[in-house]
């Protein structure tokens, strides 16, 4: 099996692709394969990593034209074609070079974010939109003595959204983000919805109004790629649809 990996650094006119024959090991992940490349072939290959267990959100990349976490993607099932995800197509995942999905794994940087080097992208814009939605509790009590009570059912509902690891995989997978760079994107909107849903915070629609703008809830075209690519089972599209409906019924 081969790794085909995108290489780019400042000063290059256009990116190139390097190929590398991998030593197969049981359970080998794309992240493991990138380490093999770095350690045995070229130590200048650049990629980000931390937890290697799909919890820190560092290693989002475009793998075989699907945005995924490199540490969570195993090579064998990928080559066997078992990890297929059918996405609504968009320019970010169109063919760049030919590759043989039965023998090669194609690894490229996450779409929709500027490439710093090789597989490292600049996440500033992603976090700018995160900040825009004011993701924080508005509590005033700084010296609380007692916990506030919460219904376990409410907790369960909230967990769908608190599970987001801010990996930007959905941001790279959303066709609208590709067309409209000002769109807040699925992750920021899902985060906003998480605060709206929390019964300890607002009970009205005031939170939702933060994204009641052209590039907020209303920019979503319901492609649904976000839910399909999310490695944590977060459904941003549901958040967006619910929020839009709540706002609409309030405006009526």
């Amino acid at each position, binding site marked *: 099996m081969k790794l085909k990996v995108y290489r780019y650094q400042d000063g290059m006119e256009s990116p190139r692709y390097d190929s590398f024959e991998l030593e197969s090991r049981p359970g080998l992940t794309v992240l493991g394969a990138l380490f093999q490349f770095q350690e045995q072939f070229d130590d200048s290959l*650049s990629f980000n990593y931390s937890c290697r267990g799909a919890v820190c959100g560092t290693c989002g990349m475009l793998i075989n034209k699907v945005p995924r976490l490199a540490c969570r993607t195993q090579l064998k099932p990928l080559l066997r074609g078992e990890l297929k995800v059918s996405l609504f197509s968009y320019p970010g995942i169109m063919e760049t070079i030919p590759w043989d999905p039965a023998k090669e794994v194609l690894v490229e940087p996450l779409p929709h974010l500027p490439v710093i080097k090789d597989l490292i992208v600049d996440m500033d814009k992603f976090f700018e939109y995160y*900040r825009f939605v004011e993701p924080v*509790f508005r509590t005033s009590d700084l010296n609380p*003595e007692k916990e506030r009570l919460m219904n376990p059912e409410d907790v369960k509902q909230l967990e769908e959204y608190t599970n987001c690891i801010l990996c930007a995989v959905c941001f790279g997978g959303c066709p609208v983000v590709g067309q409209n760079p000002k769109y807040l994107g699925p992750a920021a909107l899902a985060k906003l919805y998480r605060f709206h849903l929390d019964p300890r915070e607002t009970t009205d629609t005031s939170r939702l109004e933060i994204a009641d703008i052209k590039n907020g809830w209303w920019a979503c075209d319901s492609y649904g790629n976000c839910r399909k690519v999310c490695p944590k089972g977060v459904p941003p599209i549901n958040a967006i649809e619910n929020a839009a409906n709540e706002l609409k019924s309030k405006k009526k």
Partner: protein
Amino acid sequence: MITNHNVLIIGGGLTGLRAAIQLFDSSLDVAIISKVHPLRSHSVAAQGGMNASLGNVPGEDGSVDNWKNHAFDTVKGSDYLADQDAVEKMCREAPKTVIELEHMGTVWSRLKNGKIAQRPFGGAGFPRTCYAADRTGHNALNTLFEQVNKRNIQIYSEFFVTSLIIDQGSCVGCTALDYLQGEVHGLSAKAVLMATGGFGRLFNKSTNALINTGDGQALALRAGVPLKDMEFVQFHPTTLYGTNILITEGARGEGGILLNQDGERFMKKYAPNSLDLAPRDVVARSIEEEVAQGQGFEGDYVHLDLRPLGAERINERLPGIKQISIDFSGVDPINESIPVQPGQHYSMGGIDVDIDGKTRISGLYAAGECSCVSVHGANRLGGNSLLETVVFGRLVADQIINNVNNIESPPKKLAQANIRKSEDHIKALIDREGGENQFEIKEKLNNTMSTKFGIFREKDTMLEGLNEIKKLQEKFSQVSIKNKDLKVNKALIRLLELEGMLLLAEVVALGAIKRKESRGSHTRTDYPERDDTKFLKHTLVTWEDENMQVSYLPVKLGMFEPKERVY
């Protein structure tokens, strides 16, 4: 470039973020420096929970938990090596800390009556561990990051700290490589708090994030601060076979059981009372014993069976564990047992600090996993370290607030000189053409640490190990890297990490060789008993003139007299 702040925090995990909030709210100009974006810190991976004697779930006999019970379990768990004044402080502050997080927004799992849920954890007399499903660290870290973000606290993200700036015995800042730009910066401050986490990646089988390379401990050691109790390394009994990703103790807390090749619940033999929920050191040794006796599965693992819990409970309480085992070993725990084996998990030892988080260098503080205050002694109880990060992150920040106003800002020229030193060092590493390969050295180091300083230790093999470490240190002086760029050079970052790890390995080795007893996680087959007359004391290792010096420090006893530790 040189920048100036009142206080610098090195590390953006739970410890660093909690401290930053406290300092900011006291109107200090505080900045966080982190080699990864704070949300990528290792704290995000913590699963099982945080201990606090909220008393929301009664004990077996219906009694209600309190901080003293928590303190007793912690001290006993530590095999009496913890300092009891620090333990008392942590356990008293625990309930407040969990409630504070709740008010900041953490979504704790709840009981039917709406209160924060608590689960049993190893070595604890009560169900005391508060949790957010099995994603406690993720939830807590996001909450604190949200608070830091709201305050607009300055974060130097993807800055790798390369040295501490010491002037006339005081710490007045640090230098850091902004590795995306390839520039060394000088950061001056009146006080520096180290919150850099553990050093698990010294070992080859570890649950830790790949970035847990103990940089902070090495920085402190080089600056002249002793490291304390570094030989005490926790091995978690249940890590996923293959990747060694953690399978939380909460899985056994919820009712999961360990089985050997014959399907026997072997913990009955080793801890007849606590069974699968005996403390980590006990369970990890039991698994190693089973495997050594040929009762394990091929590849040296045993089974963790969650099926007794049933699908509903697994889905509700352990959704992350289910996902991990499907993703990384193709096993759905609803239908099959999970293959597990022990792996390095936690660093009990660390930068020597007093109960206020102060090191011996004025202006330099440490808290969280990189420090040793010591609340964990020879063995940490699950759920106590998340607690430690948030409690001491706050308390040590309070100490800094009390002290920092009397200090003058350090002169800029100091930072300038230190930038140059750091640049020269980096340049020398990049330019070197010695022919040794850093990745081979790292692999050898990992193997040496795991085989010679693992769960079972013994004099001769440890001496061999120390020898190997020294050889690897020598090889390091001949390492060359191919990538010669300053900008985005990950090979360079890995090299800087390795440089520190080689120093720490020697510290661990010396402490372990000289501690001729078995206590907590430190198990010597040649000295199987705990020896309170000779070793009820902390190990200190300093690095002076390129030489390691070992000395000892008395343990602070208190309420609880040392007793034999039976479970």
